[in-house]
């Protein structure tokens, strides 16, 4: 067990959560971060789905990495991701129909998520399955963390709710408080992501 959780492996897992966050530092996966964060719940669901798919596609690619012809490696990666996503969505449709209805649009978005391809190409092609698994989980959670922050801000200010429960009390509305309609627009999440990146980088600068 000692080797499985060595210092290097812990770093593989924890780096993408903060110092090498896929959204805040590598600026990958922005497209889906804009599309699904207008409310908290889809943001969480999307974050978790990406975590699972990144981890498993990382493992598969890492297992077959030595046999992949270099010239068609991107195609091979894409096929693995697409097959995995399709199977997951089929299984969900059969055994967790409600969840699959909620996920409908995101499943397609996962295939095109740049983080997946980025991790496969940059990490799984050079590293063993266990490290790749940790890397996938770490990157997925790092991505999910940013999505949750953005979703939190947008739902709170845009709808006055969190996870569908009303947070802003009624008397605020009676006294003229209004939900910020801008927050429900995709453009606003770009600004929030910008603010998150700004805060993230200025904090990390001090650490260095």
């Amino acid at each position, binding site marked *: 067990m000692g080797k499985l959780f060595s210092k290097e492996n812990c770093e593989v897992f924890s780096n993408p959560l903060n110092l090498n966050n896929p959204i805040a530092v590598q600026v990958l996966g922005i497209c889906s971060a804009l*599309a*699904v964060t*207008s*409310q908290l719940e*889809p943001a969480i669901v999307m974050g978790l789905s990406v975590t699972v798919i990144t981890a498993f596609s990382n493992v598969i690619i890492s297992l077959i990495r*030595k*046999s*992949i*012809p*270099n*010239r*068609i490696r991107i*195609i*091979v990666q894409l*096929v693995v991701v697409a*097959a995995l996503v*399709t*199977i997951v969505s*089929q*299984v969900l*449709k*059969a*055994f967790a*129909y409600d969840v699959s*209805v909620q996920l*409908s*649009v*995101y499943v397609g978005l996962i295939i095109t998520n740049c983080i997946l391809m980025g991790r496969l190409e940059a990490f799984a092609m050079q590293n063993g399955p266990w490290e790749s698994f940790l890397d996938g989980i770490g990157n997925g959670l790092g991505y999910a963390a940013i999505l949750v922050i953005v979703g939190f801000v947008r*739902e709170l200010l*845009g709808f006055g709710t969190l996870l569908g429960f009303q947070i802003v009390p009624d008397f605020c509305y009676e006294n003229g408080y209004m*939900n910020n*309609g801008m927050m*429900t*627009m995709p453009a606003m999440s770009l600004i929030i992501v910008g603010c998150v990146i700004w805060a993230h980088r200025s904090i990390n600068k001090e650490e260095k």
Partner: protein
Amino acid sequence: MKLNTNGNVYTFVYATVMVVIVAFLLAFVASALKPIQDANVERDTKNQILTSLNITGLAGEGIDKKYAEVITDELQEEGGKVFVAQVDGVTKYVLPVKGRGLWGGLWGYISVNEDKQTVFGTYFDHESETAGLGARIKERWFQEQFNGKPIFDEEGNVVLTVVKKGNSKAETEIDGVTGATLTSNGVGAMVTDGLNAYKEFLNK
């Protein structure tokens, strides 16, 4: 012997084998799970029809049981299929409607009271509207706005529709979803056109 993984032959063979394996895998998964998925879809449709009759909160077998109990007949009318329902001893009619949203198809069920002049309940759903915006037409607060609304004006035209939030003046204008004007318009058009198609049945 070390395999040359960069050769043309190897690349071709690799790609072919990979595609065949993945194709078989996907075909197998899809056909193995098809019956279960179809059963889920069918049950979901029943649940949608029940929801349009303001019967919610059911799951699993309960949906099939309640559906068999409530829906007594299916008619083939001018505008399409009509489900006849008995809710607490009163007759209601459920009209399926279809329309277009911003990104994809919309559909719904409108249930009308026995006199066919007012709405009893509605259910709307979508293929791929934006989560948190257009997708909110699926939420009950939006659908319940239609309950009890009249369908026709004095001249007998279908006037029930959806307008931008805060602009509803007449009783037949329903508030749309903020930030989802195009989806809301789509629902409005679907309701108006859908009911128009059933006009003959509704005036019978």
